[in-house]
């Protein structure tokens, strides 16, 4: 049970690290800016993770919903001159409602067909944003989106305050995800990923559960988009492009699909790596492509999955040493254990 006590120490340490991160960088605006952006991406990746990682439905329309969240906020504040936080709330509602309508149709398909359907859908969302000039200003984009309005005495007029605002939202998202994954709902979603027929025969209404996950996932995408719009203060139709979906998917795959910490690890790694490789903008895919392929082949559950199976192996070897005399496990048992452990990470990673 050392994992639990470890977790009790690790999580507060990570949070403290995130809180004091700006101080450590001596308020370097560039670093804080990149960090804030990666936190925003993480929120979107968590949405994708819940749907693709836990429920087994790979949605390629995720950037579309990200863009809907961003544009809803942009249009409501810039064109309708609405109060920021009201617009923020409405942006989330709009994204979720569109998610609900789309979900009802999209979830009639499964597996590859679901991926293909959502791929088309994502492209349609992008085209609508790109071509509907009277509403979205088309390729010119929306300029002058206001920064988050003051909450009482707290102002969001600089990088640092925005960093903490986004961090608070990210922590909330992680908390919500943690609660979902460790509840009956989480096991229900895993059951659906496992086998929909089987889930149905034990009485799970798969459509209702899948729709809930789909809407939640679009809600996270919308939240991520709205935060992006208020942070960057300028949005163009590019944020809805399929490229963004694949970026998010890469973060998820590298970090570990279907793991709780995967989105954080993957996003941080790729975002910072991209920053270091900025001079090689055109060639960076030459590096990422092979790395991603190798990772998927050798560590299908990403870095988090790989590391935790390594820990499990070390631990089971350790416990085997101490119990060989008393228990004397057979080699076969060990093999079985290893197989099941890699499955177990799905929940625990």
């Amino acid at each position, binding site marked *: 049970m050392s994992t639990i006590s470890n977790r009790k120490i690790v999580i507060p340490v990570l949070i403290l690290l995130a809180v004091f991160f700006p101080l450590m960088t001596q308020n370097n605006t560039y670093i804080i800016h990149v960090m804030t952006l990666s936190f925003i991406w993480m929120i979107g990746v968590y949405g994708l993770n819940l749907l693709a990682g836990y429920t087994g439905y790979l949605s390629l329309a995720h950037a579309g919903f990200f863009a809907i969240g961003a544009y809803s906020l942009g249009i409501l504040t810039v064109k309708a001159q609405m109060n920021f936080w009201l617009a923020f709330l409405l942006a989330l509602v709009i994204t979720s409602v569109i998610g609900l309508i789309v979900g009802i149709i999209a979830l009639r398909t499964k597996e590859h067909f679901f991926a293909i359907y959502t791929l088309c859908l994502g492209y349609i969302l992008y085209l609508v944003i790109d071509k509907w000039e009277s509403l979205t200003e088309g390729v010119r984009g929306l300029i002058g989106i206001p920064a988050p309005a003051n909450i009482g005495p707290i102002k969001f007029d600089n990088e640092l305050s925005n960093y903490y605002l986004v961090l608070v939202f990210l922590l909330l998202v992680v908390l919500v995800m943690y609660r979902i994954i460790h509840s*009956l709902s989480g*096991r*229900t979603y*895993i*059951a659906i990923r*496992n*086998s929909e*027929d*089987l889930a*149905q*025969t*034990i*009485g*799970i*209404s*798969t459509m209702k559960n899948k729709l809930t996950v789909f809407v939640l996932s679009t809600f996270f995408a919308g939240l991520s988009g709205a935060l992006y719009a208020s942070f960057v203060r300028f949005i163009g139709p590019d944020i809805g492009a399929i490229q963004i979906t694949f970026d998010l998917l890469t973060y998820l795959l590298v970090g570990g699909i279907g793991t709780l910490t995967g989105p954080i690890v993957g996003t941080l790694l790729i975002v910072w790596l991209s920053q270091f490789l900025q001079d090689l903008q055109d060639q960076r895919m030459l590096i990422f492509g092979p790395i991603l392929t190798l990772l998927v082949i050798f560590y299908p559950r990403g870095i988090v999955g790989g590391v935790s199976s390594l820990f499990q192996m070390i631990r089971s070897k350790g416990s085997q040493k101490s119990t060989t005399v008393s228990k004397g496990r057979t080699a076969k048992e060990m093999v*079985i*254990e290893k*197989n*099941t*452990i890699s*499955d*177990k990470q*799905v*929940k625990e990673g």
Partner: protein
Amino acid sequence: MLKLNNVSVKYGSFTAVHDINIEVNAGEIVVLLGANGAGKSTTFRTISGLSKPAVGEVLFEGEKINRKSADQIVQLGIGQCPEGRKLFPAMSVEENLNMGAYVHRRKKGQIKQSLEHVYELFPILKDKRHDAAGSLSGGQQQMVAIGRALMSKPKVMLLDEPSIGLAPLIVEQMFEVIQKINKEGTTILLAEQNANAALKIADKGYVFENGSIVLKGTSAELFANDEVRKAYIGA
């Protein structure tokens, strides 16, 4: 209690089950015999709502259920234990069992009682309750599958080939437990290839061949039938 009237099921243009009539009365053990691909599993899929009949109707306690979704049918009281011991391999034994009580998820007290009941039937599962279901032996996995079906407190339990791939001794134990579950008040519909073991505990049976029922009768009648003996018992 459970009745299939003139049911036909099609996969595309292929008729998997043709014009079958089955009647299961409360308290009975009814066995469906037949080789692979004879239509037993399709019949089960139809009762549990995964496949819809092209013709005919399925009645449960007088109510027509063939338009209902699979999860609604579980709520009505038809529990299924699917073929091939399909479990959730990543979840622990206890989590698997608790998933079986999904339709009763708000009744925590009842779930605890059902869980104790399953552990009484299969004491080994209590020892292994924190192990991943995927790490168990075939027989133990079958126990989890039956236990999980019991957790939904079904009035009728559908058991699809519980003996498949198990050692003879384990098969015997499994059928003893099935008999015990039946005595405690659960009606049982069983699909089997192991006619010898199944007919010993069943009240009556239906013989499937190429998607149709070719023979029906009490266990004694079927046991005495030459064709059945030749095809399924090998004596």
